[in-house]
């Protein structure tokens, strides 16, 4: 690229991205910088912050066992919950990506839990996962499991229970997959079929590559969402039983808003930032190998 073209591109690039730059400068930069500053301060969110250096970080790593427990809980969500929900939403999107009479009705049906108020979902899941009379355990007993898990009242099974519940939220990613799926041209499938590719091969060699930009999106957003997992635990279990569902963001929230410890919470936020950013960077770095962009700007 010649210098003149480079400069022209730079000009246009900055111009088009100007809204974000302005927004970042006005609304985003200061809060982020402030929170970094708070992480090195003792700040109760009422009186001005007081610089204390690395004290918050020291306490976090050395004195707070709940920090490690909540981090573990969240990493569990990332490691187990994320793949499960990604696979589920992709599966459902594939299921719904067909022409069938009334398919619009089905798509709406599957999207419903994402827009139903949390209280409704919570009640249903409290019932479904009820150890005595819940549907899940009734089915398990019918299948011959003698002592089905006690789900939300058992520390060992509370997180899997919440992961099951998160499957319902597949609606959002499902919609994005559907929008991406319709971008896959019919012609490619037909050409593949002509070459003798069966359904599975078509999926692997046409669908997945064409869908890969969107998969990357859902993967990154799912990663970020799992690291920040909070709402269900706050509403349904409030961290119990025995801190099995005290996730990192919940612990952070308690420190920030119940305990007058905004400085400590900020330090926690930045530790999470580093961990999550590292994971995201790894995903982005390796994405070049499996993501196919038809329109990469040259």
């Amino acid at each position: 690229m010649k210098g003149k073209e480079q400069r022209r591109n730079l000009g246009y690039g900055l111009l088009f991205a100007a809204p974000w730059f302005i927004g970042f400068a006005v609304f985003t930069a200061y809060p982020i910088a402030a929170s970094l500053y708070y992480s090195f301060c003792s700040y109760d969110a009422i009186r001005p912050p007081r610089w204390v250096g690395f004290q918050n970080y020291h306490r976090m790593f050395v004195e707070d066992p709940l920090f490690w427990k909540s981090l573990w809980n969240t990493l569990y969500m990332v490691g187990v919950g994320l793949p499960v929900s990604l696979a589920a939403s992709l599966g459902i999107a594939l299921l719904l990506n067909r022409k069938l009479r009334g398919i619009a009705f089905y798509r709406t049906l599957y999207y419903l839990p994402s827009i139903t108020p949390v209280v409704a979902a919570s009640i249903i899941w409290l019932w479904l996962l009820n150890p005595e009379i819940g549907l899940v355990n009734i089915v398990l007993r019918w299948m011959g499991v003698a002592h089905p898990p006690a789900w939300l009242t058992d520390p060992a099974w509370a997180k899997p229970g919440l992961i099951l519940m998160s499957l319902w939220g597949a609606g959002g990613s499902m919609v994005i997959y559907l929008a991406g799926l319709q971008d896959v041209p019919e012609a490619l499938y037909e050409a593949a079929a002509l070459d003798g590719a069966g359904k599975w091969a078509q999926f692997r060699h046409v669908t997945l590559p064409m869908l890969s930009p969107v998969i990357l999106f859902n993967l990154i957003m799912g990663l970020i969402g799992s690291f920040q997992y909070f709402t269900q635990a706050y509403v349904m279990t409030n961290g119990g039983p025995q801190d099995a569902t005290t996730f990192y963001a919940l612990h952070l929230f308690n420190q920030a808003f119940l305990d007058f410890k905004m400085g400590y919470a900020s330090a926690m936020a930045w530790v999470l930032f580093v961990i999550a950013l590292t994971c995201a960077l790894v995903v982005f770095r390796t994405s070049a190998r499996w993501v196919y962009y038809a329109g990469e700007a040259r």
Partner: protein
Amino acid sequence: MAIHVKATTGPTGNQTRQHGKGRTVARVARTIASHGVLLGIGVFFGLPFYWLVSTSLKPDSQVFAMPPVWIPHPIMWRNYPRALTYIPFARYTWNTLVICSLNVVGTVASCSLVAYSLSKIRWRGRDLVFLVLVSTMILPAQVTLIPTFTIFKWLGWIGSIKPLVVPSFFGSAFSVFLLRQFFLTIPNELSDAAKIDGCSELAIYSRIVLPLARPALATVGLFTFIGAWNDFLGPLMYLNDERSYTLSLGLQRFVSQHGAEWAMLMAASTVMTLPIIVLFFFAQKTFIQGVTLTGIKG
């Protein structure tokens, strides 16, 4: 080039006719099977919403019965008029609509511009800006709430809807990321041709890329609308006059310290969720064009 779905090499014409009848039966069977699977799993997904609606018609005593009461008896139709007059529903709906529409317009306009810059123009520092943009989503919001509030206070916007609306005109990381991924699937031949013809970037953006990205824009619009519709914390923090309250705040009016008007709350929640369902059902056509039918293309 007309492209038809065609069978692989094999049956002759005669056999095709006979197999035609067999194929119809097979097709009907497949359709029934599809419906069966979709409905079977779909019932599961529809549970929370069904519970919501059925609870809105229950007398208070049955609301939290375990196991849940699936069919209310007696059916309390009057929960609905009671709920809709308990709070100024029409006004809150209008307030919410204003905020949502402005958000949609602002987000779609600004994010498409920024996403275009990050995907269709090659400029130095682009990838770094993209990374910074994505990483702004990683930091948990709890620790930036106070500095953000301070900015709005300094601007004098507390007590108005400006904090809820203006930032959407400056790009939202989520939507920019999503649109960038979609823009990257649009091949460059058309825009290259247009550039050779001497078209400006703005023209390429508005006349080539935007129309081709309509499904993605519709998806972004839908998510933005739903996010703003259900947002509770934002309106709570920045609105201080009940006359400007949104529906999500209005719903809290049903909740007392010891117990709540549960059935009425569910009725109000149902009414609040219905527009979103209708919106999604009809907007599907725009962002899920479905598997394209056979026929002439191009």
